[in-house]
């Protein structure tokens, strides 16, 4: 019996073999299609999830943004202008009119603030800071009132350090103080 006769006697085997080989070839060429589609489905699912999360997060954000811009606008109006050195220095001397004290010195520190400056632990990103050294002669009550006013006045200021010394005799109420005042200013 020849090989062709053998093949002819097993038609089902031949057909099955052809089908099997076709399937193997098909799987070989399109094998990564499912994996690709699954990866794309996962990526799209994540994208949709993110979009939905954004949708929830943005709820009421517009109103918050508007009120925040208003607050920031108010802050901008209160900032010192680093270029206006004379005006800034004059501002501190003007406290003499308001308080019973003598301001003997107002000096601006030209060096960068170690706390609020670049790479400082509380580095400012949007604003800059000016540091002023004030020397004043006054009494305890006026000194306290002055510190409170520095904290609550229109420009955004904070007393970071001070040295308060009693001067005169034991019963004297006179004080001398050196005060470091930080003032928030426009970014340079």
């Amino acid at each position, binding site marked *: 019996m020849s090989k062709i006769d053998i093949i002819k006697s097993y038609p089902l085997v031949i057909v099955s073999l052809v089908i099997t080989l076709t399937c193997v070839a098909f799987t070989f060429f399109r094998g990564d299609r499912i994996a690709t589609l699954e990866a794309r489905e996962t990526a799209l699912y994540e994208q*949709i999830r993110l979009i939905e999360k954004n949708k929830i997060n943005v709820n009421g954000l517009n109103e918050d943004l508007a009120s925040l811009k208003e607050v920031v606008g108010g802050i901008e109006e209160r900032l010192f202008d680093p270029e206006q050195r004379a005006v800034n220095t004059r501002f501190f001397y003007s406290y003499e009119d308001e308080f019973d004290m003598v301001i003997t010195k107002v000096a601006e520190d030209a060096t960068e603030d170690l706390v609020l400056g670049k790479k400082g632990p509380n580095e400012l990103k949007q604003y800059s800071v000016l540091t002023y050294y004030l020397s004043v002669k006054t009494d305890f009550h006026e000194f306290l009132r002055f510190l409170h006013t520095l904290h609550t006045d229109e420009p955004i200021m904070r007393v*970071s350090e001070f040295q308060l010394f009693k001067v005169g005799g034991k019963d004297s109420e006179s004080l001398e103080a050196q005060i470091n005042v930080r003032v928030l200013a426009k970014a340079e």
Partner: protein
Amino acid sequence: MASSSKDIQPHWRPNFCNTSALPDIKVVRTNFMINFVCVVVALVALFFVLEREYRAHGLIAEVERMDQQIQEVTPSNELALKESEAFKSVSSNIIDIENFYDAPETMHALIVKVSKLRPEGLSFDQFIVQETLGKKGSKVYVEYKITLAGDVEDPILLSDFKAAVENSDVFEFEARGFKVDESLMARNVTTGIFPYRLSILISPQIPVKEKKAEG
């Protein structure tokens, strides 16, 4: 002369039989098993391919649906992202303000609170608050040192003042502990009073004291 394959004589067999030409006379015929196995293998392969194609078809439909969904919401999402970005940008101004005011206490409030702890017979001649930077590894932090100096009539008053400072909540700040040191100088022979110095260090590196249970 070349002979055709039909003319080739089968190999010689001891029983003189050409088995390939003989009919299948086994009691249980086994030829069908070859067909059966081949058909099963083909069907399995076919099922495998069809199942994968069906899954791929489903995935394509799902991906198209998701793509469509994303395209529909993309404009509103871009708007949301713009708003979020604007909010983030504006909020950094507020973070700056928080950083600017980051201190345990305002100075005027601190002076008032410390003054209230002062016992009679102890006076302040100096009140100094200094801000310094500390470093631990790569972390830089801010410390505050309060120095009080003056005179005290009786050394026990300084001890009382130190105890009052240590037990008060004036220096209890979030994530910052404090420690108190005092030193007493030689008595002034003329006045009979003792100059003293008391320093309070407020630092994030000092463990915060646990509050004692009330009652």
